[in-house]
C-alpha cells in the first residue's frame, strides 16, 4: 500500500523544496498575523446593540439566524447539495442480505436513539439563549441516524425515497418559505416582523435540525436509497458495496 | 431612416437574404436556388446603379452605428465605393451564372452558393465601409466566407491550401488590426475622407505614423498578394474555377487592393504621405511584386497557377498607382486598373475553368490546338491575355497608359521601364499560350472530354467569359465616353480634388 511506502521513504528533493516553501509561507503569514494590531472593532458591539431586536438571547444564534440568516439559508442549501451530489453519484452501498445484529447493539440503539432525539430537541430549543441551535441539534440527530444505519436494520433499506426527500428538503424549503413570507409581510427578505422573530427562528431551527439530521445520515449512507428507481429499474446488480 | 440609408441596407441584404435562404434549401431545389441567386444579383446591381446615380448627383449615403467610444460602424457610399461595388456586383452576377453552369450535377451546391452570396455581401460591405473599423469587420468576414469556398473540393490539397490561406489572411488581419488600433490611438477616429487625417499629426508623430502605414500595408498586403505575402494565392487555385474568379477578380485580392487605395487616399491622404515619405516603399514593393509575379508566371505549366501569379503581378499596378498619389494621372491609372484587372482576370479564369470543365485541360502543355475545339472560349481568353499585356484597345492598355503618364509626371523614369518590362514579360507568358492554342497541332484526344453538345461547352459556361471579354474590349474602346470605368475614375479623382 502506498501508505507504508510513504512512511519509510525519506523526503525527496521536491518534497524538501515544497516543505521549505510551505514553511516560508506559514512564517510569512504568521508574521503578518502577529503584526495585525488588535484594534479592529469587530462586529461585537453592533451585535450587542442589536441583540434586543433579534428575538433571541444567544448572540451566535442571533447572528446565525437573524442578522446573517441569509448565509445560514445558503449553508443549509450547501448541505442539501452535498446530498444531491452524493445521490447523483451512486446508490447507497447498504448490504443486501440481512445480517445478524448482536442483541447488545440492538439494545444500545434502541436505548440511545430516542435519547439522542430528545437531546437534539433540547439543543435546538436551547439555541435561543445559549450555545446550541439547529446545527448542533442536527448533528445529534444525524448521529442517531448513523447509529441506526450501522445497526443494519432491515427496514432501513425499505425507507421510501419520497419521505426521505421531503425530510431533506423540508429545512431549506421552510427557511426559504419563511423568508418569502417575511418579504411579503415586511418588505424585507428574512426581515422577521416585530415580535415574531423568536418563534420564527425556533421554527426554522427545528425544521433545519430535522433536515440536517437526515442529511448527515444520508451522507453517511453514501448514496441514494435503492428504491428511487424501483419502477423502472429491475433489481439488478449492486455496485460492490463498500462502507466507509 | 431616409431612402439613402435604406438603399445601403438593401444593397447588403439583397445578397445576404438569398444566401441565407439558400443555405436552408435542400440540395435538389436547384432551379429555385438559381432563380434566387440571379434575382439577388440583378436586384443588387440595380440598387447599386441607383446608388451610383445618387452619388453622381451629390446625395450622401451614410449609416453610422457607434459601438464603443471611438469605434463605430460606418457605411458610406462615396464614388470610390461605388466603383468597387459596381464592379463586384456585376462580376458577381456573371460569376454566379458561370458557377451555376460549372457546378451542374456536382454535390453540395447549396453550401457553395450560400457562401458565394455571403462572400459578395461581405465584398460589398468592404466597398461601402466608411472607416477602418468597418473595413476591418468586413475584411475579416471575407476570409471566413471565402475559406469554405477554397476548400470546397475537400481534397487534402485543397485543405492544405485553405489552411495556408487562413494563416496568411488572419496573420495579415491581425497586423492590420494592430495598425488600425494604433492609428486610432495616435490620430483619433478616422473616417475615410478625401484628405485623410489632419497634417498636424504628421509633424508631431511622423515616425509612428510611418510605421503604422507600413503595418497597414503589410496587413492588407496579404490579401493584395504583395510579394513576400503572396504565398497563399497560387495555392488557392485548387479551388473550383468560379471561386478562383471570385478570389482573383471580385473579392479577395481586389479587396486587398481596394484597401490599399483606401489607406492611401482616404486614411492618410496624399499630403500626409508625401510628408511622411513612405510612398517610395509602397512603390518599391509594388515594383518587386510586378516583376516577381511575372517571372514566376513564366515558369508555370498549370494554367490556373500561371493566372494566379499573373494576378499577383497585375494587382500591384494598383498599388503602384497609389504610390504616386500626388499624380492624378497615376491615381487614375491605379484606380481604373481595379476595374480593368477584374474584368480581364475574370475572363481568363472563366476560360481556364471552361477548358478544365469541358476537356479536362489543366496544363498549358495540353492546350495544343484547343482553339479549334473551343474557338469562342479561346477568343475570350485571347482578349483577356492581350489585355493583360496591354495591347490597345483593351482596357489593360488604358490602365498602363495612365500609370505610365503618371510615373513620368512624378519624374520616375524607371517606373516606365518597369511597366515596359512587365508588359514584355506578360507577353512572354501569355503569347506562347495563345500560339499553342490557336496554331498548335491538335492532339489525338483531349485529357477527358466531359461535354459534347451543341455549343463548344455549356451555354452558361460560355456566356460569361464572352460577356466579360467583350467588356474588356468595349470598355477600352469607349474609354473616353461619358459612361465608362475611366470616366467614373476621373470623377472620383475630381472629387478628391487632385
Amino acid at each position: 500500500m502506498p501508505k507504508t511506502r510513504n512512511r519509510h521513504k525519506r523526503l525527496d528533493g521536491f518534497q524538501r523544496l515544497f516543505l521549505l516553501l510551505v514553511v516560508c509561507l506559514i512564517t510569512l503569514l504568521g508574521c503578518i498575523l502577529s503584526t495585525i494590531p488588535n484594534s479592529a472593532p469587530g462586529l461585537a458591539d453592533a451585535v450587542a446593540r442589536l441583540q434586543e431586536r433579534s428575538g433571541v438571547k444567544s448572540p451566535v444564534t442571533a447572528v446565525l439566524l437573524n442578522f446573517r440568516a441569509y448565509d445560514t439559508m445558503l449553508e443549509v442549501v450547501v448541505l442539501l447539495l452535498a446530498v444531491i451530489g452524493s445521490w447523483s453519484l451512486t446508490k447507497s452501498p447498504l448490504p443486501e442480505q440481512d445480517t445478524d445484529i448482536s442483541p447488545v447493539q440492538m439494545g444500545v440503539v434502541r436505548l440511545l436513539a430516542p435519547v439522542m432525539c430528545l437531546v437534539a430537541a433540547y439543543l435546538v430549543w436551547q439555541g435561543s439563549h445559549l450555545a446550541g441551535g439547529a446545527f448542533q441539534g442536527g448533528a445529534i440527530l444525524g448521529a442517531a441516524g448513523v447509529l441506526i444505519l450501522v445497526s443494519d436494520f432491515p427496514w432501513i433499506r425499505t425507507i421510501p425515497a419520497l419521505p426521505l426527500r421531503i425530510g431533506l428538503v423540508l429545512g431549506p424549503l421552510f427557511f426559504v418559505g419563511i423568508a418569502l413570507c417575511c418579504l411579503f409581510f415586511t418588505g424585507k427578505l428574512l426581515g422577521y416582523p416585530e415580535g415574531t422573530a423568536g418563534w420564527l427562528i425556533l421554527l426554522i431551527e427545528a425544521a433545519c435540525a430535522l433536515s440536517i439530521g437526515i442529511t448527515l445520515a444520508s451522507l453517511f449512507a453514501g448514496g441514494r436509497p435503492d428504491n428511487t428507481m424501483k419502477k423502472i429499474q429491475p433489481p439488478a446488480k449492486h455496485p460492490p458495496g463498500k462502507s466507509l | 431612416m431616409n431612402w439613402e440609408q435604406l438603399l445601403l441596407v438593401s444593397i447588403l441584404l439583397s445578397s445576404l437574404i438569398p444566401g441565407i435562404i439558400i443555405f436552408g434549401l435542400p440540395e435538389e431545389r436547384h432551379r429555385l436556388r438559381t432563380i434566387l441567386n440571379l434575382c439577388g444579383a440583378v436586384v443588387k446591381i440595380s440598387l447599386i446603379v441607383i446608388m451610383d446615380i445618387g452619388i453622381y448627383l451629390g446625395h450622401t449615403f451614410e449609416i453610422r452605428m457607434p459601438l464603443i467610444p471611438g469605434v463605430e460602424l460606418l457605411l458610406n457610399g462615396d464614388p470610390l465605393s461605388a466603383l468597387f461595388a459596381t464592379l463586384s456586383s456585376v462580376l458577381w452576377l456573371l460569376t454566379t451564372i458561370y458557377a451555376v453552369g460549372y457546378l451542374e450535377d456536382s454535390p453540395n451546391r447549396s453550401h457553395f452558393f450560400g457562401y458565394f452570396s455571403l462572400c459578395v455581401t461581405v465584398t460589398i460591405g468592404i466597398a461601402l465601409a466608411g472607416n477602418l473599423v468597418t473595413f476591418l469587420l468586413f475584411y475579416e468576414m471575407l476570409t471566413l466566407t471565402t475559406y469554405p469556398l477554397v476548400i470546397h473540393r475537400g481534397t487534402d490539397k485543397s485543405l492544405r491550401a485553405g489552411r495556408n490561406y487562413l494563416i496568411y489572411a488572419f496573420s495579415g488581419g491581425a497586423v492590420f488590426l494592430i495598425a488600425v488600433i494604433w492609428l486610432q490611438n495616435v490620430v483619433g477616429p478616422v473616417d475615410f475622407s478625401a484628405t485623410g487625417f489632419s497634417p498636424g499629426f504628421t509633424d508631431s508623430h511622423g515616425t509612428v505614423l510611418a510605421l503604422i502605414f507600413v503595418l497597414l500595408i503589410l496587413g492588407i498586403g496579404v490579401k493584395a498578394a504583395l510579394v513576400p505575402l503572396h504565398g497563399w494565392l497560387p495555392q488557392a487555385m485548387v479551388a473550383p474555377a468560379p471561386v478562383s474568379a471570385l478570389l482573383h477578380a471580385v473579392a479577395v485580392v481586389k479587396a486587398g487592393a481596394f484597401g490599399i487605395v483606401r489607406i492611401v487616399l482616404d486614411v492618410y491622404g496624399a499630403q500626409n504621405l508625401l510628408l511622411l515619405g513612405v510612398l517610395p516603399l509602397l512603390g518599391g514593393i509594388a515594383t518587386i511584386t510586378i516583376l516577381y509575379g511575372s517571372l514566376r508566371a513564366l515558369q508555370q505549366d498549370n494554367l490556373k497557377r500561371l493566372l494566379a501569379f499573373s494576378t499577383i503581378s497585375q494587382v500591384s499596378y494598383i498599388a503602384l498607382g497609389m504610390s504616386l498619389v500626388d499624380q492624378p494621372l497615376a491615381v487614375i491609372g491605379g484606380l481604373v486598373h481595379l476595374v480593368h484587372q477584374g474584368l480581364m482576370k475574370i475572363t481568363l479564369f472563366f476560360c481556364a475553368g471552361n477548358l478544365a470543365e469541358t476537356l479536362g485541360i489543366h496544363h498549358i502543355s495540353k492546350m495544343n490546338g484547343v482553339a479549334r475545339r473551343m474557338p469562342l472560349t479561346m477568343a475570350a481568353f485571347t482578349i483577356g491575355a492581350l489585355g493583360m499585356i496591354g495591347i490597345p484597345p483593351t482596357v489593360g492598355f488604358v490602365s498602363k497608359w495612365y500609370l505610365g503618364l503618371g510615373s513620368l509626371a512624378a519624374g520616375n523614369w524607371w517606373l516606365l521601364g518597369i511597366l515596359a518590362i512587365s508588359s514584355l514579360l506578360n507577353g512572354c507568358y501569355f503569347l506562347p499560350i495563345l500560339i499553342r492554342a490557336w496554331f498548335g497541332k491538335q492532339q489525338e484526344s483531349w485529357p477527358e472530354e466531359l461535354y459534347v453538345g451543341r455549343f463548344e461547352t455549356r451555354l452558361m459556361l460560355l456566356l460569361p467569359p464572352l460577356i466579360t471579354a467583350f467588356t474588356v474590349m468595349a470598355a477600352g474602346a469607349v474609354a473616353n465616353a461619358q459612361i465608362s470605368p475611366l470616366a467614373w475614375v476621373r470623377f472620383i479623382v475630381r472629387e478628391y480634388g487632385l
Partner: protein
Amino acid sequence: MIFLNVDNPSWMITPIIVPLTAGLLCFLFQRKTFAIALSAVLVNLLAACFLIGQLLTCGPMRYSMGGWQAPLGITLRTDGPAVLMLLMTGVTGFAITLYARGYFSFRIDDPGGTDRHQQQQRYFWPLWLLLLAGLNGLFLSNDIFNLYITLEIIGISAASLAALSGKPAARLASFRYLLSSLLGSLTFLLGIVFLYKSCGLLDLDLLRNLTENGPGVRAALALMSVGLLLKTALVPMHFWLPPAHANALAPVSAILSALVIKGSFYLLFRLWFEVFASSITTEALNVMGGLGAGAILWGAIQAMRQHRLKLMVAYSTVSQLGYLFVAFPLSRAADNAQVWSIVIFMAMAHACAKSAMFMSAGTIFLHFGHDRIQDLTGVRASLPITVLAYGIAGVTLMGLPPSGAFIAKWLLLSWALASCQWWWVLVIIAGSAMAMIYVFRVISRFIVIPEGFSSQKLEFHSRLLEWPALALALISLLLGLVAPWLLHILAKGSIDLTQILPGGLP
C-alpha cells in the same frame, strides 16, 4: 402592493430565490422537473432584464437582508457589471436549459442506458438550478463571507455535475476538481480571516471605503486572489479544468465553461479593481498579466494539439481566460468603467460562444458516438446548424468583428498601444492566431464533404439540440453591435457609493 414598485430593491433577490426554490422543488418532486426548471430560468432571465431596466431608471441599488444594514447585516447590490453578469447567466442558462432538455431526451431515447440517463437528468436539474442560484448570489452579493458560501455552493454543485456522466474519467476529474476547488475555498477563507482580523468588516463597500490598508488586508487580498485563481483555473493551476470540462455531459460542460469560471473571475476582478483598488501595485498587476499571457499561449498551444473535440474546446477555455487577465496590467491606462467594459465583453462573449461550442460538440458526440476530430469529416451534411453554431462561436473565440470578444480585444490592444506595452499586443495577437488554427482545424473537417461521402441519416433529431447553440453563437457574434448599450449600462452602474453608516440599523 408597495414592493411591486419598480424602484423597490427587493427585486434583486429574484434571481437568487427563484432558482433556489425551483432547485429544491425539482429535487423534491422529480417529475415535471423540466417545466419547473424552464420556468425558473425564464423568470431568472426576465428578472435580469428587469434589473437592468431598474438600474437604468433608478441607478445602482443596495438591498439589506432582513433589513440589517452593513456592517452587521448582509447586503446585496446591483451595479452595471453585476446586472450584466446576471444577464449573461440568464441568457446562457436559458439556452443551456433548453439544450439539456433535448440532450437528455435524446439520451433517454437511446435504448442503451435508459435508466442511467434518466438518473442523470433527475439530478441534473436540481444541481443546475442551485448552481444558478449560487452564481446569481455571487454576482449580487456584497458581503465577503456570503461570497464564500456562494462559492461553495457553486463548487459543490459544479463538482457533482462534472461527475454526473458516470464515466470513471469524469469521476476522477471531478474529484480533482473538488479538491482543488476546496483548496481554493480554504485559501479564500483564510484570506477572509485575515481581513476580518484586520478590519472587523465583511461588507465590500465598507472595506472599499477604508482609507488605509495594512499588511493584514494586503495579505488577505493575496490569499483570496490565489484561492480564486485556483478556482478560475488560470495557468499554471488549470490542471483540473480540461479533464473536468471535457468528460462531463455536454450541458454540464457548457455550464462549467461558460458560467462557473466566470463567477470566481468576477469576484477576483471586483476585489482587485473595486474593493482593494488602492492596495494594488503595478508589479502585482504585471504578474497577473503575465499569468494571463501564459494562459493564452499555453492553452492555445494545448488546444491545437488535441485530438478530441471537447478537450480542445476545454483548452480553449484555458486560453480565453488569459485575455481576462491580460486586462489587469493594462488597467492603469484606463479608468474603472473601461476596465469593466473589457472584462464584461470578454466574459459575455466567451460565455455565449463557449457554451455554444460545447453544445455543438455534445450534439456531435451524441450523434456520432465519439468526438475524435480526425473522424468527424462531413458532419455538416448531417448537422448543418450545429456546425454553423460551432463556426460562429469559433469566430467569436478568434475575436473577429463584430463579436464582443473583438470589442474586448480592441480595447485591450488599444490600451496596450496607448501605454506602449507592446508585448501584450504580441501575446493577444498570437493567441488569436492560434485560436484561428484550432478552431479551423475542426471546422475544415466539418464542412468538407469529400467525394463519395454518404451522409448518415440520423435517427434521433431534436431541434432543442441545435437551435439553442445557434442562438447563443449568434448572440456572441452580434454582441459587439449592442456594445453602446452595454457600455451605457456599465457607465450607469459606476457611481460613487454613498457613505454607509456603521451600526447595521434597519
